[in-house]
């Protein structure tokens, strides 16, 4: 399995997908090492297990290190009781995790691909999300974190590429978090694990090996429900999350060459989301573009568009642009056509600015 995944890394490098994940405002401290995103996740899991003896990591193929290597070394260090394989059954993994969390543990469950999270949908939506509310706070499963790799990877086709985040954004009681880089991934994952609410944490698998940045080795957390302005600008606001941030950033750079100043926001937490930061930015720029890999219709971009239209109607100088995946299943040979690529975004930036 590891070999197959190394293949992904090699292939992606041919696509010259540039990456720079740090905002100008918040550079990582310099005591860190250059590591990739799966290593950052791995560090966060080491810290989570180390700092709380009531924490557990489990899922399919987790014990040997996971198909994406995120759980490497954990079983050796913390033992097979705390880091273990489960049978191949997503609804079982999440149901089990809810019960474990409900007993006061931190249950860190891995769903091997977000494309396979649907069998666990009922447990996540009807059980985890409502556990506290339906019991009047007699019980909660706040120690639950579901980690799962999502998104395009160059050759994943229908079932190794999906971005199902918007399904979960329609569920009160859940938090949905997506990091854009190794530094973000470590800090946000630790926050999710320690947050007293159930969280679905989507990891951009495209970036597992590709994204490399300096990450402090110590224990740190980044705030949930706080978006981050990672590039200041005056002409248009761009909003995205996860792997899409690197595409948006490239579009910003190209736009800058043509004299367009883009403000780029990483939403980071999709629910409950930081409307205020996006609103403040749009009040400044008067224009908004939202971009995600998931299909356009019913995607979380629609929610952002509607909310900003409500709050900034008189300030908006152009319709909100949404550059997203197509409303098709994720296609294999047509991946490049399906994707919200840099040039699609760039064209939309220009059209919106000139509107």
């Amino acid at each position: 399995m590891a070999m197959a995944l190394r293949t992904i890394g090699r292939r992606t490098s041919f696509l010259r997908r540039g990456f720079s994940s740090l905002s100008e405002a918040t550079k990582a401290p310099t005591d860190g090492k250059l590591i990739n995103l799966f290593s950052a996740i791995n560090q966060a899991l080491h810290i989570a297990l180390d700092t709380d003896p009531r924490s557990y990591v489990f899922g399919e193929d987790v014990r040997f290190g996971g198909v994406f290597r995120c759980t490497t070394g954990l079983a050796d260090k913390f033992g097979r009781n705390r880091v273990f394989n489960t049978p191949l059954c997503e609804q079982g993994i999440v149901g089990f995790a809810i019960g474990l969390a409900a007993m006061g543990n931190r249950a860190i469950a891995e769903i091997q691909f977000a494309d396979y999270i649907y069998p666990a949908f009922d447990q996540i939506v009807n059980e985890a999300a409502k556990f506290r509310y339906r019991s009047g706070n007699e019980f909660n499963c706040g120690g639950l974190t579901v980690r799962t790799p999502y998104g395009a990877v160059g050759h994943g086709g229908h079932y190794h590429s999906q971005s199902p985040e918007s399904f979960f954004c329609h569920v009160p009681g859940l938090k949905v978090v997506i990091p854009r880089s190794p530094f973000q991934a470590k800090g946000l994952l630790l926050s999710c694990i320690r947050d007293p609410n159930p969280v679905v944490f989507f990891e951009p698998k495209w970036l597992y090996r590709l994204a490399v940045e300096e990450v402090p080795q110590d224990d740190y957390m980044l705030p949930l429900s706080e978006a981050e302005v990672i590039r200041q600008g005056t002409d248009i606001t761009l909003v995205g999350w996860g792997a899409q941030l690197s595409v948006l950033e490239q579009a910003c750079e190209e736009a800058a060459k043509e004299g367009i100043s883009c403000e780029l926001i990483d939403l980071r937490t999709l629910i409950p989301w930081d409307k205020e930061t996006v609103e403040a930015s749009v009040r400044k720029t008067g224009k908004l573009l939202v971009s995600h890999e998931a299909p356009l219709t019913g995607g979380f971009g629609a929610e952002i568009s509607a909310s900003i239209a409500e709050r900034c109607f008189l300030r908006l100088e152009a319709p909100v642009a949404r550059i997203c995946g197509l409303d098709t299943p994720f296609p294999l040979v047509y991946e490049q056509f399906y994707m919200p690529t840099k040039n699609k975004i760039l064209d939309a930036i220009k059209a919106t600015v000139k509107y």
Partner: protein
Amino acid sequence: MAAWFTRSSGLARLLSRRTTKMASPAIFGSGLGPLSSDPPMPAPGFGASSAGECLRSLRHLGSGKAGEMMSQVDDRCGDQMLDFPGGKVAFVPEMRFLPASPSERINCYRVLDYNGQTFSGSRFPEVGKEVAVKMYSDMITLQVMDTIFYEAQRQGRISFYLTSNGEEAINVASAAALTMDDIVFPQYREPGVLLWRGFTLHEFANQCFGNKLDYGKGRQMPIHYGSNRLNYYTVSSPIATQIPQAVGAAYSLKMDGKKACTITYFGDGASSEGDFHAALNFAAVLEVPVIFFCRNNGWAISTPTTEQFRSDGIVVRGQAYGIDSIRVDGNDALAVYNAVHAAREMAIQECKPIFIEALTYRAGHHSTSDDSTKYRSTDEIEHWRTARDPVSRFRKWVERNGWWSDAAEEEHRGNTRKELLRAILIAERAEKPPLSELFTDVYDHVPSNLHEQEKLLRETIKKHPVEYPSDVPV
């Protein structure tokens, strides 16, 4: 996980072995060309045509790493025996399919006959006078509750109700065999477990009326009880979702070294859900102290078990997953008590799951929204309500021991009735939970979007107060 990656995994292993010879990492991006000239990988002992296929078939069959399995092929077995993960498997020349079911049905453990007399040789030392009387009186209380709450729903005073008629023995006797440290993950037809643990009639009434004293803050339909104090996880309506959760909770008990188990209840219908199968398999593999208690009452709303499954009930599924399992007469309180008592001991001592299938009958309708005479005969219902009634059967045994009498019966029924009617009156008059509770407990703290929505809602209420129920304090 999808077959695609499994296959690509097998392929990747193949590729990696071959490319080490060729020392050419470029092969990963260049298709399968070089493979065609390579000799096939040997696949000793498995008869598979390639290592890739071999790995796939192994993955189907079981646990362990492929590498380990390869090395486990034991030449000493010769061609009589296959040393395979899970144990040795004998080769036979005859082609025989396993029959769909064994020639005889799994038998059913019972202590009391229909006359409340014990079979000779039955052992039931655990149930003394005090426990037996509490068991019986709780069964009566449950009957009184069911009668009065059902009537209250018919009068429109509560929105919904669901009785446990016919399953009183299961409810109370299983609870009696546990300790308070054991954790309960109920479905919804087990209020007797909560009653046994000390949930008061007032607490039941508060939940059914959804008033401000309801622990669930009026958010769920009647009968969705829960109590942290009594280790009884709050009922949720979806079928079978609680079963894998009980397994996760049992894992916690195991890790904490507690001398306790979890028990989860569910019906025959739930045994068709994926969560049921997931839970049994997880429990067996992860070796956790959980008791799966299946109330096979013959009916999932209107669907009879003949349209639910073809197996010999549900007990055989426990064994299929590698779990010690037993079938008991669910209308025999002593049999249920003994089975759960023994199951608890085994689960905790040996740290493993136990499966119990209790044969019973849903003598009432599914719920107040159901009329079961539309799909089953009144004769059938009547037969189970009388000849096979678990409460009167247990009463005969308790009376025969001199622990119960007509006078005691009359007094207990009368007192319970009076107390419950009073609890209902109080619960009915109590305020509903305040509007602010609509927005709490979604998360540990109320997020800004909910603050915003609460503010908007309050403005709407001010404008249109008559649209909203007057008994919810705003």
